[in-house]
């Protein structure tokens, strides 16, 4: 009882209250006097909001039907299920087997609701809503049905919540608390099931399985690996592979998320933490160019696990195994202190003050054109901006980002981003993949293509080295000759392309490293022109980038002045660049390595500047479709490490060319003058100009066939190379 209410009671004279009571008892209600019942009994219910952002999209306004959920009318499009109608009405129906992105199984029976004029409770997930249906979710029948189903589910489910990793985020636990009975009547012996070996990522405790078949449907529909199945029948029913088989999918970690119980849990995370101890930080993934939305769960200074975050336009609700399990790489091989390589070839830890003085002194000793700066594949936009500004102030313009090739094209944004967007790929009906294998280069893009192929029977063809896709894919050829054939309309695929409504061409960024990349791109542009790929209403010309830093680097204009600068370099600044080829670097060159992992770049370095990883800093990344997103610090930095841009800012002061920004805000306003799109966070900025503005290319394509850009999906950058889990995966799961 509120304080105000108590006060008003005290103030109010007792007498009046008594008289009011008396008066009230003899008041007659007018509606009771009228003979006929009220025409439309308007439900006296507060309007409810749809659950979990359930969107109602009417493809055809005529198809709208009205149903009543607990007396509350909702308008839904035809073909929706009862469960979806309830979601729109703001009623949460308990469910185990139903998942909005998977096919409907209807075998858990948890979603039973009462429907008027139906003799039995109906499984709402599998029942289409019909006009005027009166759905009751809160009646004794529905409650009893749920309680009964729950009792059956718990019959064979072990009561091992205290030792179960799903505890605290378990659907069965939550729903048995909400809808179950407080006791069971089952007195027999519970069944037990042999655990299966699904590989180094997914731990199985199959006795806990409630046979919802979500994992089976996920594996066959989304991941495209037909390995899991439901074996046996009755009480002997179990999920398995029948013959011993590992789950060799790049999306296998997602079965951990969709499993409503603790049957499939994360093997690396097993018995490490409870989910209520973890602090969640909503950030983005940088192990590939997709920029999947993730949540980093940390406990104290340690990243405990990575889980996906919903983003319909980028990763839906899945992430790749590399994204999910790379986190243990953040704890290994880290660079803690600034170090200088002594005369004996060993590194010695020194203070920041000393190391910056040494670097600044040497930077001033070399000629400006002998200075080279290379940004790594994990660099954020802020640090790349700072690096470029610093080198420009020192008089050099040899700065680029690895992966973008020796002479990147940064002039036309349409030439290096995915113009149709990742979500937009679903509208395509023909795909031509040129020199790319999205399954390993960007697993989420591949999942999107697979979804399109499954949903609308889109055709896919590829030019490149023969690989295996998890959908039907036609192999057209291995190299530029096939591309020339298609461009000159001599190839049978041309007719498919020109007959397509929304053709999409995806070019792999692995081609950036080729010397004939301009010729290849102009050939692809000819194909795009012939196939009418770029229209005002549809832009199907896509470049699939490999690394998180690439798009932002090109937006910021990280283009080297000369493509041979590394051969004459005397001072090389590697900002996390590990995969750059330093073979031709002169022996007397001074190499500064700034980064967070002691990876390949360190072997040649003279000085190490420890930097923070993506989980420890605030940084802007642009993904392959041109959508800028920001990471947030989840854990503190390791040792004496600093943010990348801060190191460069400090170095610039020591070197006497002070950069004019001291805060993230200030450096972002500097970025605004160069690439304002990087500041519109979580918004996809489409490219404005099309390649028709480009000058003609006279160079011919070489006949060298295309090569695979990534040979090991699990190990592509310094974080994943330091990860033990990724090493296990590449040892066990990669086909030899």
């Amino acid at each position, binding site marked *: 009882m509120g304080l105000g209410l108590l006060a008003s009671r005290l103030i109010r004279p007792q007498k009046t209250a008594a008289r009011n009571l008396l008066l009230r008892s003899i008041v007659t209600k007018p509606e009771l006097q009228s003979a006929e019942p009220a025409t439309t009994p308007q439900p006296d219910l507060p309007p409810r909001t749809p659950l979990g952002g359930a969107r109602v999209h009417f493809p055809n306004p005529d198809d709208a039907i009205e149903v009543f959920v607990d007396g509350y009318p909702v308008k839904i499009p035809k073909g929706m299920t009862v469960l979806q109608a309830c979601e729109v009405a703001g009623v949460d129906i308990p469910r185990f087997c139903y998942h909005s992105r998977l096919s409907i199984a209807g075998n858990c029976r948890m979603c039973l609701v009462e429907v008027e004029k139906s003799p039995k409770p109906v499984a709402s997930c599998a029942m289409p809503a019909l006009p005027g249906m009166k759905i009751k979710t809160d009646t004794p029948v529905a409650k009893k049905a749920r309680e009964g189903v729950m009792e059956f589910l718990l019959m064979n489910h072990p009561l091992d919540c205290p030792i179960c990793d799903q505890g605290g985020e378990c659907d069965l636990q939550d729903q048995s608390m909400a809808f179950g009975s407080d006791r069971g009547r089952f007195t*027999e*012996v519970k069944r037990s099931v*042999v655990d299966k070996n699904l590989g180094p990522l997914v731990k199985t405790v199959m006795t806990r399985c409630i046979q919802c078949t979500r994992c089976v449907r996920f594996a*066959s529909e989304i991941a495209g690996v*037909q*390995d*899991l*199945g*439901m*074996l*046996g*029948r009755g*009480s*002997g*029913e*179990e999920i*398995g*592979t*029948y*013959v*011993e088989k590992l789950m060799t999918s790049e999306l296998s970690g997602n079965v951990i998320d969709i499993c409503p119980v603790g049957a499939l849990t994360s093997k690396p995370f097993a018995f490490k933490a409870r989910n209520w101890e973890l602090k969640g930080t909503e950030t983005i993934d940088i192990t590939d160019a997709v920029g999947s939305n993730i949540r980093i769960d940390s406990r104290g200074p340690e990243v405990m696990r990575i889980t996906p975050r919903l983003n319909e336009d980028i990763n839906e609700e899945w992430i790749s195994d590399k994204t999910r399990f790379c986190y243990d790489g953040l704890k290994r091989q880290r660079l803690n202190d600034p170090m200088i390589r002594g005369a004996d070839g060993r590194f010695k830890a020194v203070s920041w003050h000393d190391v910056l003085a040494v670097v600044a002194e040497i930077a001033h000793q070399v000629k400006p054109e002998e200075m080279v700066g290379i940004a790594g594949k994990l660099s954020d936009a802020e640090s790349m901006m700072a690096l470029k500004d610093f080198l420009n102030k020192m008089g050099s313009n040899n700065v680029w980002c690895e992966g973008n090739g020796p002479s990147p094209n940064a002039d036309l944004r349409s030439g290096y981003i995915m113009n149709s967007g990742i979500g937009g790929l679903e509208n395509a009906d023909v795909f031509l993949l040129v020199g790319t294998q999205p399954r390993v280069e960007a697993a989420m893009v591949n999942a999107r293509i697979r979804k399109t192929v499954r949903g609308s029977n889109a055709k896919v063809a590829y030019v490149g080295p023969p690989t295996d896709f998890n959908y039907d894919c036609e192999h057209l050829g291995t190299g530029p000759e096939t591309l020339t054939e298609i461009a000159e309309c001599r190839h049978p695929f041309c007719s498919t392309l020109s007959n397509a409504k929304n053709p999409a061409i995806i070019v792999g960024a692995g081609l950036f490293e080729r010397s004939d990349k301009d010729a290849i791109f102009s050939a692809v542009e000819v194909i795009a022109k012939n196939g009418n790929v770029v229209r005002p209403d549809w832009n199907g010309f896509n470049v699939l980038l490999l690394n998180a830093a690439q798009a932002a680097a090109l937006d910021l204009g990280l283009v080297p002045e000369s493509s041979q600068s590394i051969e004459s370099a005397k001072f090389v600044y590697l900002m996390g660049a590990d995969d750059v080829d330093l073979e031709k670097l002169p022996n007397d060159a001074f190499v500064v390595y700034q980064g967070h992992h002691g990876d390949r770049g360190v072997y040649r370095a003279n000085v190490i500047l420890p930097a923070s990883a993506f989980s420890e800093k605030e940084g802007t990344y642009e993904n392959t479709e041109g959508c800028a997103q920001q990471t947030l610090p989840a854990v503190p930095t390791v040792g004496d490490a600093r943010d990348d841009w801060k190191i460069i800012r400090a170095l610039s002061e020591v070197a006497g060319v002070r950069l004019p920004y001291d805060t993230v805000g200030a450096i972002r306003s500097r970025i605004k003058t160069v690439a304002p799109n990087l500041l519109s966070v979580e918004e996809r900025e489409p490219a404005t100009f099309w390649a028709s503005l480009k000058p003609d290319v006279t160079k011919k394509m070489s006949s060298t066939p295309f090569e695979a850009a990534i040979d090991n999906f699990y190990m592509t950058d310094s974080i994943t190379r330091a990860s033990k889990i990724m090493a296990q995966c590449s040892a066990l799961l990669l086909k030899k």
Partner: protein
Amino acid sequence: MLARIVATRLLEIRQSLRLTPQHIDTADNNPDLPWEFSAANKEKETLADMISCRYAIGDAAYHFQYEPSIKWPLDVRVALLVSMGEALALYSCTVVKEIVSHYPSNYKQSAVIPLLDLAQQQHGGWLPVSAMNAVAKVIEVAPIRVYEVATFYSMFNRSPVGKYHLLVCGTTPCMIRGSREIEDALLKHLGVKRNEVTKDGLFSVGEMECMGCCVNAPMITVADYSNGSEGYTYNYYEDVTPKRVVEIVEMLRKGEKPLHGTQNPKRTKCGPEGGNTTLHGEPKPPPCRDLDSC
């Protein structure tokens, strides 16, 4: 204490009854073993197939096979062997093709159960993993989809059975009429446990649920795999007694074919013992109102 012993015993019994749905990798159940549908499916072929295949094999091949006394030159023999092999391959394919042709071409997977059945008959009554893989290849689905079906139906045996697989009906009517004694008698006579094969590989005993013969309960079924899929029979022996099933087993052992159907000499088919007690004459028509008198 007693309750605990009972519970553990119950668990043991349950586990011994349940055949695990997982694949057990034995020497004869290796997924990598080659397995093909063979030519031994003559029973299922259509007339057209029969004619075409006989024609393809040809008279000469017939003579070559069955009259080895004729001395054929070597090259002729090789050529004949090759053409015979081709014809046989074609022949076995036609049986499979015939089964698949019963289903729409875009729903080939519907043929999974008939093909598994054919494979089981051909392979002596059980399905190795390699046979299931062969079926999966024919109907163009992932092997796991075939394993799912094969593990679901208890009629598909995934471990070896005897040449005569004896199935005792254990459902209520038969159980009341003494199916447990029948099973005990069989197991004792053969000296095996349930789902075990006798040492000579001739017999195995399994249990099945109601086979729709309740009026003649108790009953057993004999699945005869001794002659491959062409001589495959699946016969019901009804109204059996513990003594009679042993006799049936001994007759089968000798290679005789005991008469299937009811084993009670006083009954014909499902009629009552000792002849009809009702329905002696022509049944009277149902009483009807005399419409003309109205």
